């Protein structure tokens, strides 16, 4: 854990309201049975027992809050940051020791994998996916034969049923791509061109899958990723790792029906590579909070295989995260878009790409670089004004996600500080 400051504590919070709530439970008189050692800090507030594992950091609290960290855990850290005399070095209570032990316990020894059985399982799945994709191809060809004009009269069920068939065929990634077609049809001017390009890319997926064995390993991996056949952590970690001082430049959390997805974007300060850490949480379970935007961490990242590796896992951390003091990014929007073109040339199924700009000026719903090149922003009113407030019409660093020709800004860098956008 770096030297604890209230700003750093605030950066661990899931949202601004949590910081506010934590402030209300960060007063020495509200805490009892507090203490810390070099691994953890703990205490009791209003009857709830809170503990923080400083290594991760990870949080535990007996309160009923669904937020992680909850206000008590944050309040405890604020208390420690601001009133160190209230949290003394102390022997670890049994409950805390147990929790730490559970957290540090090495994962149970796995049964050795039977390579033959595994190969058989994989071949079975590949065949099921192949059969599903053949069905998809017939459906796509039928769409083109009937004409895209007919697509506009199709009920949502038409798309949804095909998407569901792809999920049944163990190709959930294709299911998502099919379901998106329903949205494209209703996306206004120019939809036929967008639908054709999208359908064409699905067809390309079918074609690729048919001759999967003849393709380079990286392209095979791209196809596998596109159909939604995920990789195990062991598979990913077995590959080579990239060490860098990774700047954590932005984070997006998306609520799905039954789970939440967290996309954390990193940029290597030496390699200039970008990386995406994906986390999922079911229902109200907490999302990992180890990678905090506005910090930088010296770590090895293991990238998922592919021609344009983007998604990664943290294989090893060499040091505790530190506050971010420098910013990278492309100096021009065109430079960033050239990077995207190279990425798409390598892997046409890439959907969402990071864009990190060194200096651009937001105004209204556009972002303009020094050369006058201007891209549309995908922001709501709150994000738009937050951007303008932080920039004040001056160039600022911006990190975000590029998709469908617009930039969704996630964070803005100004005065050597990263402000995350709502």
């Amino acid at each position, binding site marked *: 854990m770096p030297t604890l400051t209230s700003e750093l504590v605030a950066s661990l919070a899931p949202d601004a309201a949590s910081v506010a709530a934590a402030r209300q439970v960060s007063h020495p008189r509200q805490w009892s049975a507090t203490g810390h050692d070099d691994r953890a800090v703990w205490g009791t507030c209003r009857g709830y027992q809170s503990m923080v594992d400083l290594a991760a950091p990870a949080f535990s609290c007996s309160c009923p809050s669904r937020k992680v960290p909850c206000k008590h855990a944050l309040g405890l850290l604020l208390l420690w940051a601001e009133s160190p005399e209230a949290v003394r070095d102390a022997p670890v209570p049994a409950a805390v020791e147990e929790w730490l032990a559970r957290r540090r316990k090495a994962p149970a020894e796995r049964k050795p994998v039977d390579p033959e059985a595994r190969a058989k399982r994989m071949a079975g799945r590949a065949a099921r996916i192949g059969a599903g994709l053949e069905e998809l191809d017939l459906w796509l060809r039928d769409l083109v*034969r009937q004409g895209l004009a007919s697509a506009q009269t199709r009920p949502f069920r038409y798309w949804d049923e095909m998407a569901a068939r792809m999920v049944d065929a163990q190709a959930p990634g294709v299911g998502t791509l099919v379901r998106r077609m329903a949205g494209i049809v209703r996306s206004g001017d120019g939809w036929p061109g967008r639908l*054709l*390009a999208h359908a064409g890319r699905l*067809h390309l997926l079918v074609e690729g899958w048919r001759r999967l064995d003849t393709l380079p390993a990286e392209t095979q991996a791209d196809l596998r990723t596109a159909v939604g056949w995920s990789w195990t952590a062991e598979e990913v970690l077995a590959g080579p790792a990239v060490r860098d001082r990774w700047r954590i430049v932005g984070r997006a959390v998306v609520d799905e029906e039954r789970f939440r997805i967290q996309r954390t974007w990193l940029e290597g300060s030496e390699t200039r590579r970008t990386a995406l850490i994906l986390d999922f949480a079911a229902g109200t379970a907490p999302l990992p909070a180890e990678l905090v935007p506005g910090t930088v961490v010296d770590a090895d990242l293991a990238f998922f295989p592919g021609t344009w590796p983007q998604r990664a896992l943290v294989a090893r951390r060499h040091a505790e995260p530190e506050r971010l003091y420098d910013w990278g990014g492309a100096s021009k929007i065109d430079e960033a878009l050239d990077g995207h073109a190279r990425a798409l*040339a390598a892997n046409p199924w890439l959907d969402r790409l990071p864009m990190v700009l060194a200096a651009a000026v937001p105004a209204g719903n556009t972002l303009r670089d020094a050369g*006058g090149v*201007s891209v549309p922003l995908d922001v709501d009113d709150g994000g738009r004004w937050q951007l303008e407030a932080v920039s004040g019409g001056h160039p600022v660093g911006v990190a975000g996600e590029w998709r469908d020709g617009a930039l969704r800004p996630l964070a803005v860098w100004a005065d050597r500080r990263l*402000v995350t956008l709502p």
Partner: protein
Amino acid sequence: MSVSWDDLVASAVIGTARRPPAIPEEPRTVLAAIDQDDAEGAVLKAGAVLGLYRQAGARPAVEDSPRPAPAPDERRPYCSVAAAERLDTMLAGRFRTVLGEWLRLVAGAGQLVPPDRLPALLHAGSVDPRLRASATDVIGERGRWLGGRNPAWAWASGTADDDAGTWATGSRDARRLVLARLRSTDPGRARQLLASTWATETAEDRAAFLGVLATGLSMDDEPFLEAALDDRRKEVRHAAAGLLWGLPRSRLGERMAERTRSLVEVPAVRLPEAVDRAMVRDGVVARPPAGAGQRAWWLHQLVSATPLSTWTGEPARLVEQAPPVLRQAWAEAAARQRDEEWAMALLDAGHIEQPALLGAVSHDRAVAVATRRVAGEGLTPGVIDVLDHCPDPWGPELSRVVVERLAEAVKRPTRPDGRLVGLAGRLDPTVAAAAVAAVADHSGRWSDVVSLFLDLLTFRAEMYEELPS
């Protein structure tokens, strides 16, 4: 002519069942390999390739329209991170009542609100106009710049307001704000603005706008108000009379003095026989409130509206001799006419059923009176009324006495007055530690009230620590 992307899309829209598709030839290196006999496959493959080309190659247009001038640099420092997080708490809705005090403290410390907090603060100011005056002191150049960018925050832009324009065309609330703001800086101009459109305002607006004139009220307003006594609508006449009752040198005041001189010869009092039309014009209400005697009610109103200078002699002596009906009316008159000598006489005699008297005396005296009452009687409902009227800042002495008495109140078996919590918003923050020590261990019984009180007081004490004064 070569086949274009648009031709390909048109083919796809119509459908290969109706017409053989038009497949572009460029880029030849990729598209030459397409099997033209498989019409659907050719459309899909060409769509994939060209769609990707177009997506990867799309370049945004270069804009040369001028950008707005950037915000000037700040000349003052930003407040600390801790202070900014305290602001977040209040903007998120907790301890919202303290926000105005926080803004004044930041301004007093010569600091600014950091830019990333400005949208939330400006929004708060747009929703609650009372915050605007203190907010404009701490938003800096960046805040003014944002005020010029977002019409909803125009109040923050610092450009000269178009008062006359807003008055002519604005909404009722906007006009009322213009009038209130002008009234506190240039009362005469506000009155002239109101007079300029008076004849065309609705009765409801006339009454509402008159209420705004209570700020900065002076004899300059008297002719306008005297004329309003003849308004068509009762609400307007009453609002005008209410203001004139606070102007002892007004013509209304003279008429009232004329009426009461024949009725009152301290300590003797004669009740009026009737209410005539002239009295009604001057704001006297004939019908008494429930429980009051009719003629005593008439006398009460007449004396309340009579200039206190009508009564010859030492106020203290007069108060001592007077019967309760006179004292009550005088208390009301002293509060309205802001007559310190009479207010002090009434307060010293212990007749302060009219806590508004505290508004008529100097700040030091008001605090001294409140301190005496709290020390003498404890935090009774009546004393809490007095504290409500005691102007800020209370200072350490009054605050200390309140904390002492609060510690007693929370020890009693009866539930403490809920209004005690609000006192924590006004106590001098230096007594916070003493308050925690004094009431924390009684928190068992009335812990909800006690913890709300302590949370609020501690919140403010920490706020003061964060900001140099």
